[in-house]
């Protein structure tokens, strides 16, 4: 009983906090004296946490009076927080669904979308794995519902570090934008994931688990690559050599699983939020995108809203 009770108490406490935070935050945005520090709350995509963190740190020297508070949890968490008024900006590693747009718009103006970076989704294996490239259709047979590939030998390789020969699929929790995007890009609109994958709650966790597990394959943002894992080349057509995820191949569309990263606000943002987003899309913010390992967006593309 105890854990359930604790959970329920936690939920009641959170609920109270949520109720308390909503109105006061709005008041803050409206009638704030110029001297006090204002806060911008960014919640969402785990892929983007490091990126938003760096933006926030650098932005402190631009606008010392603005504090940026960051929380991860996944794109779904961020959008839920935006709906409930717990965040000013939702960071999203996929586009909002129509359903989510409706929820955000409920009773107020709908979401505004800002493209802030490009990301290539890398497919990782242990560095002892002899595999160098994989075709999209093989990936779909590994991850997709009803897919036939269960063993490394089916990819015509001998994975010596993995005596059981079984492919351990590592993926993300279903709240993750990475999870949703990978399904769309690799499995298509109508196919589910195969059940039984190891679902991690963070982008980093996927790479960490793959780096310790010779039998594993996993997908995560390319910015999370470490020397302990191997990044596979991805081939659109089976038998071709494939393309490695790089800034160039992501930007020109050669790499098949590259996506945009977004920030969303609920209706027209406040001046502080607006300035923060403009700074992010400007040269200073986009330079940080490159430093973290993502791909900056061309200035023409950032005009999307």
């Amino acid at each position, binding site marked *: *009983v*105890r*854990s*359930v*009770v604790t*959970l*329920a*108490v936690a*939920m*009641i406490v959170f609920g109270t906090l949520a109720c308390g935070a909503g109105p006061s935050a709005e008041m803050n945005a409206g009638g704030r004296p110029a001297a006090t520090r204002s806060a911008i709350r960014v919640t969402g995509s785990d892929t983007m946490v490091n990126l938003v963190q760096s933006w926030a740190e650098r932005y402190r020297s631009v606008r010392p009076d603005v504090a940026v508070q960051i929380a991860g*949890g*996944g794109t*779904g*968490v961020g959008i*839920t927080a935006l*709906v*409930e008024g717990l965040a000013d900006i939702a960071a999203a590693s996929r586009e909002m*669904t129509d359903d989510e747009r409706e*929820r955000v718009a409920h009773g107020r103006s709908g979401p505004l979308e800002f493209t802030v970076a490009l990301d290539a989704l890398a497919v990782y294996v242990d560095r002892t794995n002899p595999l160098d490239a994989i075709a999209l259709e093989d990936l779909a047979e590994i991850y997709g519902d009803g897919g036939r590939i269960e063993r490394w030998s089916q990819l015509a390789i001998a994975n010596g570090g*993995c*005596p*059981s020969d*079984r492919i*351990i699929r590592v993926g993300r*929790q*279903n*709240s993750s934008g990475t999870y*949703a995007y990978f399904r769309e890009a690799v499995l298509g*609109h*109508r*196919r*589910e*994931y195969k*059940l*039984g*994958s*190891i*679902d*991690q*709650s963070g982008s980093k966790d996927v790479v960490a688990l793959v780096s*310790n*597990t*010779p*039998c*594993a394959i996993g997908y995560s943002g390319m910015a999370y690559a470490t020397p302990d894992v191997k990044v596979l080349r991805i081939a659109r057509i089976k038998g071709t050599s494939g393309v490695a995820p790089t800034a160039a191949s992501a930007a020109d569309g050669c790499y098949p699983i590259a996506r945009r990263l977004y920030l969303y606000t609920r209706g027209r943002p406040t001046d502080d939020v607006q300035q923060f987003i403009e700074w992010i899309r400007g040269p200073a913010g986009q330079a940080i995108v490159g430093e973290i390992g993502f791909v900056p967006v061309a200035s023409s593309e950032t005009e999307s809203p």
Partner: protein
Amino acid sequence: MNAASGRRAHILRRVAALRELAVESSIRVCGWSAIVFVFAILAFVFYQAVPALDVGRVREFFTSAAWRPDSVIRPQFGGLALLAGTAAVTVLAMALSVPAGFAAALFISEFCDRRTREVLKVVIELLAAIPSVVWGFVGYVVLNPLMMWATDAPIGINVLNGALILALMSVPIVVSVGEDALKAVPDSYREAALALGASRAQLAVRVVVPAARNGLLAAALLGVGRAIGETIAVLMVTGHAVQIPHSLFDPVRTLTATIAAELGETAQGSTHYHALFAIGSLLVLISVAINVAADLAVRGIREGDRT
């Protein structure tokens, strides 16, 4: 003069009576609030579960293993894999911790000297004080690579890892409750057995254990309750994979871990949100059943003493 002091004494008595009343009623409120909170929380959890419960969905939960609550294609709420995950990890953990816990309790209560007993009890209480996230960490960082190295298991976060960690976590409960049960056996039993020429081993196995069997059963059930309710450690060490396990080395996902991992992201009021509360209600019912069973078992012991 006399009248004035009489009035003062009267006022003082009134004040004392009022203070008495205030203290008494505040204690009463504190006492009742514990009960009110428990029932309010239960009512909240059950109330939130109701919208998810229709005949079709409940049937799906108990007949399908496909848990895809957020699918944009077709949401599925099959709970068999989660139930199997919880059952596999819990049963295996109990198979490990109950015999070990009983043996430890028997040793502490019947065989060791007083100094050893004191040391062992402190150490076991220390074991119970380790936070569950630390156990999870140990399972992830130590047991996971160890298991891959020692066996051909493709991955070390699986049923066996979860069961080992849960067994370590529930052993302290089994030992301390079990030891209390053994200690509750009247010394007259022991004296009678020794007077009849029983050895210490015979005394322990033939006399003390049968006399304490209800208490030992309660100890095992409380261990089960601990194991089923544990969340964060199993979330970290079972692999969090939705599938019905076919071997000890398959990763699984438990009911508790599912709630912990998914509740934060669901839209309030969605079917997924209410389905997680329904899982919570199921866990409450399982825990209540276990606690009632343990209570009945302990009551059995007392009645046994009277006869």
